[in-house]
């Protein structure tokens, strides 16, 4: 635990030592604002909820989270610090968890800084704050799922651009897998079971429910197990590279 915490602390400080944190947070806040008020027509809806705000989170995360995640391991490989890290008395699992938690916490900070939207909607009307909390929890869980995919892809290469593109693509497939675009591809040949499985992997479908305030344990479990799966794969990738 102690080592995970030390690594996470160092990693998180790393975000704020460079302009990365500032750029990411400013862009994230600007885009969530723009999407909520223009594309989402927050005012025209005339409803005291944050659906217009949450609806665009998957699409924002699709680009922004792989951008944060791409450096997690690729940069260490490129600069050689991975050799330093992995010869310190820490296990691979501790390193993987520490890095992931730092990056996830960083997303959490950015998400928390959207609180003015919450304040606004409470000033303007009387929203169901339970639904909004559910939306935030769901959004944070989804960010974690995107981040674990990005971290895992980052461990496979020392090239950050490749890490970004691959993780954005994988994230895109997960996001879209409930939609016709992806399902049509499977429906042509695969049995219904596979089509349903693919559809059930969709972030959009899962998040849609959570966003409306329905926190189904199965949806939470879905995101948590997805995170666990990709972090486990991350550990394996790092270990395999060691014995390659």
């Amino acid at each position, binding site marked *: 635990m102690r*080592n995970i915490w*030390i*690594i996470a602390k*160092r990693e998180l*400080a*790393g975000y704020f*030592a*460079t302009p990365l944190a500032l750029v990411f947070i400013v862009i994230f806040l600007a885009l969530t604002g723009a999407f909520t008020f223009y594309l989402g027509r927050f005012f025209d809806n005339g409803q005291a909820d944050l659906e217009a705000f949450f609806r665009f989170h998957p699409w924002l995360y699709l680009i922004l989270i792989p951008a944060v995640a791409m450096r997690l391991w690729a940069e260490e490989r490129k*600069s*050689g*610090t991975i*050799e*330093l890290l*992995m*010869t*310190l*008395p*820490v*296990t691979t699992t501790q390193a993987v968890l520490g890095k992931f938690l730092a990056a996830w916490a960083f997303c959490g900070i950015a998400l928390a800084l959207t609180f003015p939207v919450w304040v606004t909607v409470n000033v303007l009307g009387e929203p169901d704050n339970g639904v909004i909390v559910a939306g935030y929890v769901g959004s944070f869980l989804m960010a974690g799922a995107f981040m674990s995919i990005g971290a895992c892809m980052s461990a496979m290469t020392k090239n950050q651009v490749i890490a970004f593109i691959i993780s954005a693509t994988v994230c895109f497939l997960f996001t879209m897998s409930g939609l016709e675009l992806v399902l049509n591809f499977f429906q042509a040949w695969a049995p219904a079971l596979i089509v349903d499985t693919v559809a059930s992997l969709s972030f959009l479908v899962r998040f849609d429910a959570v966003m409306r305030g329905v926190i189904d344990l199965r949806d939470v479990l879905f995101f948590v197990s997805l995170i666990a799966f990709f972090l486990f794969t991350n550990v394996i990738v790092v270990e395999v590279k*060691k*014995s*390659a």
Partner: protein
Amino acid sequence: MSDMIVLENLTKRFGDLTAVDAVSMAVRRGEVLGFLGPNGAGKSTTMKMVCGYLTPTSGTARVQGHDVVTEPMAVKAAIGYLPEGAPTYGDMRVSSFLRFIAQIRGFNGAEIGRRVDRVREMAALDEVFDRPVETLSKGFKRRVGLAQAILHDPEVLIMDEPTDGLDPNQKHQVRSLIQDMAHNKAIVISTHILEEVEAICTRAVVIAHGKLLADGTPEQLLSRDARHNAVVVKLPAAQSKDIVAGLAALDQVAGVDALGDAVNGTVAFRARPKAGASIVLPVGDFLRSNNVTPEEMYVERGHMDEVFRAITQGSGSEAPHA
């Protein structure tokens, strides 16, 4: 236990390439082992396996009794390691980087500050202590890497090219730091710089194509050079012919070579000894008995680069000994 590091048939293959081929050796406390070899010989790969960064294909290494394959954490806790190029987190300040290392090495509270202060002094990092590592010169970066490696005062210290790319003053600093620590540790350094081996190592090991080719004190390695213990004399050109013939006829002398043409009426000659012989006394006696006063006379120690070339290319100046 005097064997601090033990390698047992340590082997690493990358696909078809055997980078390290069944290397076995032991390093004791108090030794400074120079790990020599051409680029791509397997030096870094060997060190990475001992430090637990790469997993051996077969064989193993033990550090203070801990097996790197089965107890990697114990090995990593025991070793101080400076990877090649001394990688450090560039966006961190020297102070916070060293504090991070101290924490991850398991130190708490005031002990963190004490440890960091100690290496800050040892590696002379005062003036850069609050600067981001990426803004430092190469020499300082290397010293930060060194400070990181010795922070927990490890009994086993492994350094991959600790002086590579440093200027002569910086090299001197790093070497004296290593020498100061040498008496109670087992230290392994890899290097291309052969003078370094003579300067600080108590033992040298040569590796090429992943195989261990030579192992001995720097003096023993030097004695493999045909010119080890050779005597160079500068004689008046007029007398030289007879003298050279006489020298060549001496018991212990393998041969005499002229070193260039006469300059200002003197010619230099090198008398090569037979294997293991010391010829400076017989040569001196011979000159005296012939009433020749050499302008100059000295014993050669041999050249590490010649020995290195001979060992790693398997030919050259070893031939006269054979």
